[in-house]
């Protein structure tokens, strides 16, 4: 009997420990505050020539592109989708607190610039919560209309082949070829579908692994890519990782 009671108590204790455990980050990411729109509601908002909708979102910082003159540009995402925050008023003190995973509430306007959906002229508030999105493999969506639904998310493209970037046959191009102090551009393909990629200098500068990796690319290389699915007149991901294809 004593044994049974001891086992029962042990099981109870273990179960209670599980109960005390913090909820998984993914579950937290789903919780929206009052008056806050879901990603689906945000995505459904149409930016028209005569109507720029106001938005209130809760999201999680995934990466910081830049801060200058009290304005920040951020890649953010929740469990359901991503939000690119462009040139948002933000003090340096607040910017320093915006580490990857940090939950924020954003009140601003949805805008579309050359196909890129973004939040502008917004206010940022820190909230409790943490979520870092894993890279979602969207290789199968390349060349389909569904790819845009993943816009701004942290994604991966697997088994891509490096193509010649331009008529010179180079595998990549510098925006500033003499000083090498600006963006890099390269092109990859799979199954006849091509993807224009950018190494955004403000996000990942010349000292980063990804910048160096792209500088070493050769036409025909097989690579796996990760990055944020930015849009400029079509998919133009800001690549954060280039590794040999597995």
């Amino acid at each position: 009997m004593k044994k049974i009671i001891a086992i029962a108590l042990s099981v109870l204790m273990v179960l209670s420990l599980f109960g005390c455990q913090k909820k998984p980050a993914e579950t937290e990411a789903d919780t929206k505050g009052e008056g806050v729109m879901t990603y689906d509601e945000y995505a459904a908002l149409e930016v028209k020539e005569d109507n720029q909708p106001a938005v209130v979102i809760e999201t999680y910082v995934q990466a910081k592109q830049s801060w200058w003159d009290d304005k920040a540009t951020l890649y953010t995402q929740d469990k359901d989708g991503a939000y690119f925050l462009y040139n948002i008023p933000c003090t340096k003190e607040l910017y320093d607190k915006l580490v990857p995973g940090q939950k924020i509430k954003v009140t601003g306007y949805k805008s579309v610039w050359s196909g890129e959906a973004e939040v502008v002229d917004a206010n940022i508030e820190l909230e409790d919560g943490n979520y870092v999105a894993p890279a979602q493999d969207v290789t199968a969506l390349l060349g389909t209309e569904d790819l845009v639904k993943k816009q701004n998310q942290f994604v991966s493209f697997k088994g891509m082949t490096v193509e010649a970037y331009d008529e010179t046959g180079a595998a990549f191009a510098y925006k500033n070829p003499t000083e090498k102090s600006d963006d890099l551009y390269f092109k990859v393909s799979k199954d006849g579908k091509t993807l224009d990629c950018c190494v955004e200098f403000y996000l990942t500068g010349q000292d980063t692994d990804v910048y160096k990796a792209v500088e070493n690319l050769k036409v025909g290389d097989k690579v796996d890519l990760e990055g944020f699915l930015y849009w400029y007149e079509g998919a133009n991901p800001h690549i954060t990782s280039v590794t040999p294809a597995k």
Partner: protein
Amino acid sequence: MRRFLPDKTTGRPAVRALWRALPAALLLAAVLFLCAGCHGSRGLPEFAVPEAADESRTFELTFWAKNDTNKSQTAIYQKAIEEFEALYPNVHVNLRLYTDYGKIYNDVITNIATNTTPNICITYPDHIATYRTGTNVVAPLDGLLADERYGLGGSQLRFEGAGKDGIRPEFLSECYLDGQLFAVPFMRSTEACYINQDFVEALGYEVPDVLTWDFIWEVAEAAAERDADGVYRLNGQKVMFPFIYKSTDNMMIQMLRQLDAGYSTADGEIRIFNDTTRRLLKEIAGHVKARAFSTFSITGYPANFLNAGQCVFAVDSTAGSTWMGSDAPLLDISEDKLVRFRTAVRPVPQADPEHPQMISQGPSICLFNKADPQEVLWSWLFTQYLLSNSVQTAYAETEGYVPVTVPAREDPQYLDYLSRAGEDNNEHYSVKIEATQLLLDHTADTFVTPVYNGSASLRDAAGQMIENVTKSVRRQETVDDAYLDKLFSDVTALYRLDSHGGVSAGGKADLGPLPRTAVLLLAALALAWAGIGCWYLHEKRREKRGA
């Protein structure tokens, strides 16, 4: 392919980065000049033209230039350097290229403090006005220009330069600040309106030789008609921005100039907040509400919408002409989005078509003063080489620029180039040459705004007002007098227009409390001086003891 725009406006994020960088750069400038004040305003000695160029010594010159991520332009700079070094073997020119003017400006400001400015720099007169706030930072060029040996058409030149009076006076006059010459023009452009002629005619209009604002607004509003499903009747698409303006600061400046309304005086008195500005902003608000107008900053590159059949009138620099039209050599949209149409090129819309007025823009060259005046002299000789026919015409042909010198504009090879418009869609791309010809034909109709310390801020403010009004209308806000009162007040504060752009002509900043970093910097300087003082006293005491 990503787009790299030439001229003052550059590809994203650079152009927006520049927008956000300027106020901070002004702050930085203010701090630097305050620091200079700590040293008793000592600067370099005033530049005087040396007796002769010293060929017994070697000279390393630094040349900061901007290219449009255009390999041809880079090659032209490099070729010019090689040719110059062959003529003057004792000189070596180091080229540093930038892809936007904002970065050059920021770097120059940073390097003024450490006296590590380049020798030669491609820049804008607005920026030079800020550089000049330091003591003798920028070399005045009047003496060099007129020098009989080394000036324009000088007897000692080893190359065919622009010649005496060889720079077009309209362009040279832009480079005078406070009555002194501080730059020479390098290239010039203006803005052009690139038009989908098929759309205009489909709406029942003919494209006139000179557009008026009334015409543009009327056609743009007609183009904004949609059916019940929200599809635009003109293009059968759900997207249409009938009129997109790339540079809204230029838009406001030109509108005011054409109406003879106030902008600023030559010495920096702000006059932009007037009834005409108010009326224009209300008119623009009405056209935004009618879905007839948008801007680059809000929507995207005008060329992309024009080429996709989603825009009727796209205003951009003549130096952006290679992106405009169905056959443009540079495209940023995919082939499946590209539509075919006839592209007409016209001057920007006018208030009075009988007396057209359009802005003159484009890069100039300034020289930084150095302790060794020989460096400045050699820099000047290289600058003159950049004004020689071969450099001028080659560079102008890369985009819709025009040469700034009379000999280059009359060069038979250049005239032949102009006569071959449309022979191909690269070197002789018709839209590019038409845009170039537009400025050649209208050089006398160009103007510039006054340049003074702070003029760059006023220019930004002019565009910001159009951007704000456009955004507000799209956000269903009311643009009325109360709104405009607040707008005027807001941009005055944002761009510090109540203090001549934040840095007074006298060189002292009035920017309110110093930023923390500046306070720390100044404190560190004070500590360093205190340390030096203590060390000096300590050494003196030791000497006395030793004695």
